[in-house]
């Protein structure tokens, strides 16, 4: 069912009432599960993800198999719950899109974590997707960042991610097309969008994924909005992490 995006130009409000540069409600909790080394729960709008981190721990398989003896290997497992979508659907582990997301997340963190401190070990990030409504990769990246911080794995800086889209996909109204921040599920079906993740405050892009077609001229605007959104996400995550740190400090003074 195509989404009617024509109403956007009338009031400049999106279907869920947001303006072009507004994020959905982003809530995060850190250290949600006692038995995991690190864990987090993050929701961006109606997309909800639980992340647990195991490790750094010894490689279980033969060390020759992984091929990296001098640094830790990051592996990512994503499981999509059957009840996450609108209709109940079981997804197998062999789903190609899931597999690609796992690789994207693993590569991003492999570059940002100080993996050289943990030779011959592995860091496993497992993500459970409980509810699905757009910006899935971005939510997974943010949740992983929090869980890795909770696990105490040293890293260069936060990896924060958002999605950015563009209101129109045809070239006739090029001037009027607005870039949009943080698309929800129904917008993702209709509009071209990209997922961008930055590392740190210096606008250093570490992940950029785009699977839809868009005019080259719009890409820059989308990217700028996305990177700006990452900054907002970073501020929110930072508050969560600092609140947790404060609690730990208070606890240790007793």
């Amino acid at each position, binding site marked *: 069912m195509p989404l009617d995006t024509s109403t956007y130009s009338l009031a400049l409000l999106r279907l869920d009432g947001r303006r072009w540069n507004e994020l959905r409600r982003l809530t995060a909790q850190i250290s949600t599960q006692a038995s995991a080394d690190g864990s987090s729960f993050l929701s961006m709008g109606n997309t909800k993800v639980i992340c647990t981190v195991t490790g750094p721990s010894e490689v279980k398989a033969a060390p020759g198999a992984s091929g990296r003896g001098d640094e830790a290997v990051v592996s990512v497992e994503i499981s999509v*719950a059957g009840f996450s979508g609108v209709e109940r659907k079981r997804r197998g582990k062999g789903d190609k899109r899931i597999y690609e997301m796992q690789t994207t997340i693993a590569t991003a963190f492999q570059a940002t974590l100080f993996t050289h401190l943990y030779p011959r070990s592995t860091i496993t990030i497992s993500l459970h997707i409980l509810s699905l409504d757009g910006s899935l990769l971005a939510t997974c990246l943010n949740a992983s960042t929090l869980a890795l911080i909770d696990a105490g794995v040293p890293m260069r800086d936060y990896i924060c991610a958002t999605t950015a889209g563009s209101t129109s996909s045809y070239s006739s109204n090029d001037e009027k097309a607005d870039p949009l921040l943080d698309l929800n599920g129904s917008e993702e079906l209709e509009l071209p969008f990209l997922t961008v993740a930055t590392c740190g405050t210096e606008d250093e892009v570490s992940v950029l994924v785009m699977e839809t077609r868009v005019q080259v001229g719009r890409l820059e605007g989308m990217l700028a909005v996305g990177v700006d959104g990452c900054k907002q996400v970073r501020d929110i995550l930072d508050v969560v992490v600092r609140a947790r740190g404060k609690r730990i400090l208070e606890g240790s003074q007793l």
Partner: protein
Amino acid sequence: MAPSSALQQVLLSPAELSYLHTSLASTPPIRPDGRTSRQFRPLIAESNILPGTNGSARICFDDGTEAIVGAKAEVEKSRPVFAAREEEGEGEEMAEGQGEGGERGRNEWVDISVEIPGMRDDDSMPVFLSALLSEALLADGGFTRKLWINRRFHWKLYIDILLLSQPLSYPLPLLSLTTHLALLATRLPRLKSEKDEDPMFDDDWEASVFLFPQSQTAKPPATLLVMAVSSNIIFDPSKEELAVAEVVLAVSISSSPSSFTPESEMDVGERKGGSLKLLAVRTIDPPSRLTHPGVPNVVNTATGGTATDNMEMAMAREEGVWKSPRGGAKRKLIAEMIRKVLEKGGVGEEVLDGLEAVGLE
């Protein structure tokens, strides 16, 4: 008997096992975490956590194991049942007189899947757990009857059970309690159409009806894990306690409507007093059977004893030396375990009441 091999084996030495066994067998039993024999581990429970499901719940045990259950319902066309039609045709007057007596559920309307991290879907543990949980749910047919819409349509209920952490202790009670909580919170849209029309539903979620209304006594089942060491009966065993268990039972209970009269070959004592009914009992292969036995000094050459080829001497039990339990459970003991779950003011009632309080908040 349920498989236990899928669990991570507890690495305890024969001496430690013997110590644990002795303290659990003493009266009153001394548990490693200082609980009384019928005390449960503290847990965090919440329901209605996922807006995209008809009902959902999350339970977090003290040892960090966590489970999430989501129930999702879809309208499905019923398969015509010719055999049943004929029966109805014969006794048509009677069926009309009964009114809603024609409502009859089928077991395939409920689909339970269990996901445990690090295990494949077809591993024995998830398959067994989902079979055990659906067995309790489908035991008396009352549950599937609730999914009946009309003669042509019914609800298909998918219950997805996710264990989010590693299975540190036997995950059955955790999964069962979470499922119980999710089903208590499950709501279905209110039906607007009548009789055998294509179903039409009220799109106001506020008007939706609970699958288990609070006004009714019928409640979803719960499965509890009970273990015994010598004659001591211990509830909600932890991983270490299971490592020395002699008998482990999974007891499924639900609150019974008052008219229900239990029929059972086994005499389980004063059941009439309680408001609970027994749905299913399964014995679970205790992990203690896989532990290594200790060697008494008398037959240990390392401590000055002499090795023996005398079978009886090798099998003999000695105080303070761990031997893994052999043989089955005494019927009296099993009856006593079931009685303790079902008795009025007993553990079963306590658990069901506690979980109901979660839904009310």
